[in-house]
């Protein structure tokens, strides 16, 4: 009881809960689920762009993309480490990912079909991720908040690189401009859906906000993203595929159309264009690597045994 009051007080004072502090089971469970999904998203998120690594059309872009993939693996590592402070381990979470028992961001279940997709993922997907994540830098759970600070810094670097790629392509050939517009057409709506279902359909939001795990509702973040993206699209010279998009003088915000929530639902249920492919790839890598991980453990055990002698 005293512990619970102390916990509430820390939250109310906008201070951080640390691993050794007492916390409610539901708080812990919510965080584990969220951090795990976030970590999984970083790892699965390497695939759509990784699809273009071997085909990047300039050595500079290849280096940028490879560095980004490396960053994402690193983000996964921080986040799994943050989850481990809550008493779960990485192997267990990976097991849940590859067996389909834990989710990752649905956006990664769409295919990347041209090199422009790499740029659009940087611009829109990383952009949406940043909108989601910046508030998490002030999340009540210390290790997660600190991981987010570092991750957000790198993500905004990735976003700038993505946008810069698109700017370069828009100044290029007709074919390049067509590729950019086509990629925007395919990624715009899925990006909006990254913020999750409409607030009315998001039962856990209130509790997460009370716990300072979440800071804004899905719809608030979605609006912020749209308001940020529309002028960027104009500057880029692309059309966003939403005829309902219009400036609302009164609200000082952009009105926009309704995403196809039934599509989101299908993707979340596992029937998206790439769900099976993404999980299969991760599972295959995990299974193919099992003997390597075992060997490393066996080797380390032998060295420890020697040292103990």
């Amino acid at each position, binding site marked *: 009881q005293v512990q619970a009051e102390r916990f509430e007080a820390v939250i109310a004072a906008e201070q951080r809960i640390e691993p050794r502090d007492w916390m409610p089971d539901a708080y812990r469970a919510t965080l584990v689920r969220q951090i795990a999904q976030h970590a999984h998203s970083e790892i699965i998120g390497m695939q759509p762009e990784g699809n273009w*690594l071997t*085909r990047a059309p300039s*050595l500079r872009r290849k280096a940028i993309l*490879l560095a980004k993939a*490396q960053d994402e*693996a690193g983000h996964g590592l921080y986040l799994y480490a943050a989850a481990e402070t809550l008493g779960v381990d990485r192997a267990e979470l990976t097991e849940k990912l590859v067996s389909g028992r834990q989710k990752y961001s649905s956006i990664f279940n769409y295919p990347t079909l041209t*090199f422009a997709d790499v740029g659009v993922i940087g611009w829109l997907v990383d952009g949406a991720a940043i909108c989601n994540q910046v508030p998490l830098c002030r999340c009540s759970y210390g290790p997660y908040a600190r991981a987010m600070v570092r991750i957000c810094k790198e993500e905004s670097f990735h976003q700038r690189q993505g946008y810069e790629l698109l700017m370069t392509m828009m*100044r290029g050939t007709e074919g390049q401009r067509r590729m950019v517009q086509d990629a925007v057409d395919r990624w715009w709506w899925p990006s909006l859906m990254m913020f999750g279902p409409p607030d009315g359909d998001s039962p856990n939001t209130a509790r997460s906000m009370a716990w300072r795990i979440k800071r804004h509702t899905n719809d608030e973040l979605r609006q912020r993203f749209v308001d940020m993206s529309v002028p960027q699209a104009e500057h880029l010279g692309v059309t966003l595929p939403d005829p309902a998009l219009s400036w609302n003088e009164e609200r000082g915000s952009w009105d926009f159309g309704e995403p196809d929530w039934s599509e989101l639902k299908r993707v979340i249920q596992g029937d998206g264009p790439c769900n099976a492919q993404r999980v299969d790839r991760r599972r295959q890598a995990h299974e193919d690597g099992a*003997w390597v991980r075992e*060997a490393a453990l066996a080797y380390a055990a032998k060295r420890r045994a020697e040292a103990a002698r």
Partner: protein
Amino acid sequence: GADLAAYCLMLGDDALVLAQRLTEWCTRAPELEEEVALANLGLDLLGQARLLLTRAGQADGSGRGEDELAYWREEHEFRNVRLVEAPNGDFAHSVARLLLFATARGALYRLLAGHPDPVLAAVAARGVLELAYHQEYATAWTLRLGDGTPYSAARMQAGLDAVWPLLDELFVPHAVELRIGADPSALREPVLRTLAAVLAEAGLTVPEARPLASVGGRAGRDGVHTEALGPLLAEFQVVARANPGATW
């Protein structure tokens, strides 16, 4: 001019093609730490390749940039040794290739760090440090796999057996190398000694495999490759070639 360009292409293509093979590991590595490490090795090699190709395009007077050389040459114009183009195989196979390449290339870069060409000397000087890390990484995994489980030892030995016939090509001097670079045949002894020491510590056997034959005396340095390079380049170059005149 021409010799320096040809030499930079040889070393640059080695780095470029191996970087491409390393990037193929991305999202397929046995552990996240290995994702990070393999990408890192790939980035080092890609960095070396970019400097060397750029230098080649300057030295031959053609003014071709790194991308023109990387994306618009045909297979027979690539000058890499066949070792780097071989398919990745499993993790042990890739580690074995990396061990051979990093050990030999590190030794070569040490010789080239004092090269009269300032760009080549600079690449080599930085490369010595980078390759030392690559060699250390490959050595560490060779030990882990060689002295891990019986299965991993068998895989590691199989990987070594598979890549060993490709090692010798790194030591066969091409006329250009003798004229402008370092004589790679001088590396054979010390590199083999280093490798033998690692394998001994790992409990592995130095393969007895003889060198892979060339085709009428011509091999990678002459633009005569294996069947693995064509598909690698097809994938590597496809987007650039589908968009002539584009900037990225």
